[in-house]
């Protein structure tokens, strides 16, 4: 068993550095951008044709929150090639596995984070809006300078949880042919018929990454909360 661990660990770490980490990080950044846009659309007070955009935002959040991620991955990677749009995509929408993975993970995490950010924005007391409006700020300036900086603090813990969840969820990328850390452990197990050892090993690696992220989270929470006094 010791032999298995020693020979497998480097392969697992390589796969982690090559796929698990980059896919998580890129997807999370894109997801955050998407989440922010979605949240801003959903809390917008604009009238008129804007309701279509709001409807789309709602639908998007609903869709990605109420279906399993595995299915989403599958449909994006294996399903979209069937979607042949004359002119635009005559051969269907084809993506490399990594592109499809990043797209799906971004969309998925974006839907969840959109709700987090929306909640955080709504949690900022109305008085902050009113004070900023009274100074004569436009809605955009209020959001950018007053509301969002405070919302960051509120949403940091749930966003960090989403990120940690995302890191673990990248193990599903194997289903769209990405040979990430988890898949490597399975491939090794297929040769040595020792799946249990491999599972424990890969679990330990995930735990290391997630714990490191938790520490980072704790640090960021401290930084963003520097303006909140603890006593009283």
């Amino acid at each position, binding site marked *: 068993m010791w032999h298995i661990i020693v020979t497998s660990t480097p392969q697992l770490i390589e796969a982690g550095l090559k796929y698990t980490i980059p896919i998580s990080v890129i997807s999370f950044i894109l997801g955050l951008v998407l989440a922010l846009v979605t949240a801003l659309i959903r809390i917008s007070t604009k009238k008129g044709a804007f309701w279509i955009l709001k409807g789309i935002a709602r639908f998007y959040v609903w869709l990605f929150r109420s279906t399993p991620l595995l299915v989403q991955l599958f449909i994006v990677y294996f399903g979209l090639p069937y979607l042949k749009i004359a002119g635009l995509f005559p051969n269907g929408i084809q993506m490399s596995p990594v592109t499809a993975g990043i797209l799906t993970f971004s969309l998925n995490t974006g839907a969840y984070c959109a709700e987090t950010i929306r909640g955080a924005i709504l949690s900022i007391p109305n008085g902050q809006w009113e004070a900023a409006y009274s100074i004569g700020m436009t809605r955009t300036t209020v959001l950018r300078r007053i509301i969002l900086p405070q919302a960051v603090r509120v949403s940091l813990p749930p966003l960090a949880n989403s990120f940690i969840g995302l890191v673990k969820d990248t193990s599903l990328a194997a*289903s769209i*042919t990405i*040979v990430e850390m988890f898949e490597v452990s*399975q*491939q090794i197990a*297929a*040769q040595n018929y020792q799946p249990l050892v491999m599972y424990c090993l890969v679990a330990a690696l995930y735990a290391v990454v997630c714990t490191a992220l938790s520490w980072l989270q704790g640090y960021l929470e401290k930084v963003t909360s520097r303006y909140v006094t603890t006593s009283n």
Partner: protein
Amino acid sequence: ACGSQSSQSGNYKDNLAQSGKLTIGLEGTYPPYSYRQNGKLTGFEVELGKAIAQQLDLKANFVPTKWDGLVAGLGSGKYDIILNNMSQTPDRKKAYLFSTPYIYSKYAMITRSDNKDIKTAKDIKGRNFVASTGSDNGVVIKKFGGNLRPIEQFQTELDQIREGRADGAMNAESAITTYAKDHSLKGLKYHVLTENEQPAAKISALFNKQDGKLRDKVNDALKQLKENGTLKKLSVKYFGTDITTK
């Protein structure tokens, strides 16, 4: 039969996962070996399992599970035997017992019909090949230096090749012929690996190390089934030909 590995005394029925039953692990998603037809489990290995159980005076009890659970489940006593197109290798013999082979499964390499670069197994090196992770197909791809890309569903493997997103796939010849019975292989071609490239896999039942008694009994049963023609009949029924001998 060689019962030498068995150090245990007692009856082959003593250590069963469920008494009176031969509990059999398989995937259930792999035609023609084991799959679901109108909600009922069927396939070559399903019928074979029933026949073996009958010979052993037991009731067959099938447990379908994903590949990664199969081997682990055997180790932890969730089932007595695995019938899932498993082939013998020296590595695996260190940890598990195998029955005598019940079929000899040839590997087939599927590529696009317009592909001129991949002709023999040697050409797999450095190419992106798809197969289900746990299967021996994946192991063969890796043996020839291919990049194994995991895909569980056979239809999806073929789509990937047609769309040019994978260079090829490795699978059992029988899986392809079964598919070709009522589906088109248009745009694809396949090459059955020769005995020199990769010998036919010796597909056998898999047992835990300590179940030597059961293994011996199953070997007897397989011999029986071979002699009375059942095995051949099943092979023809599911594979269209007799692959029960080398």
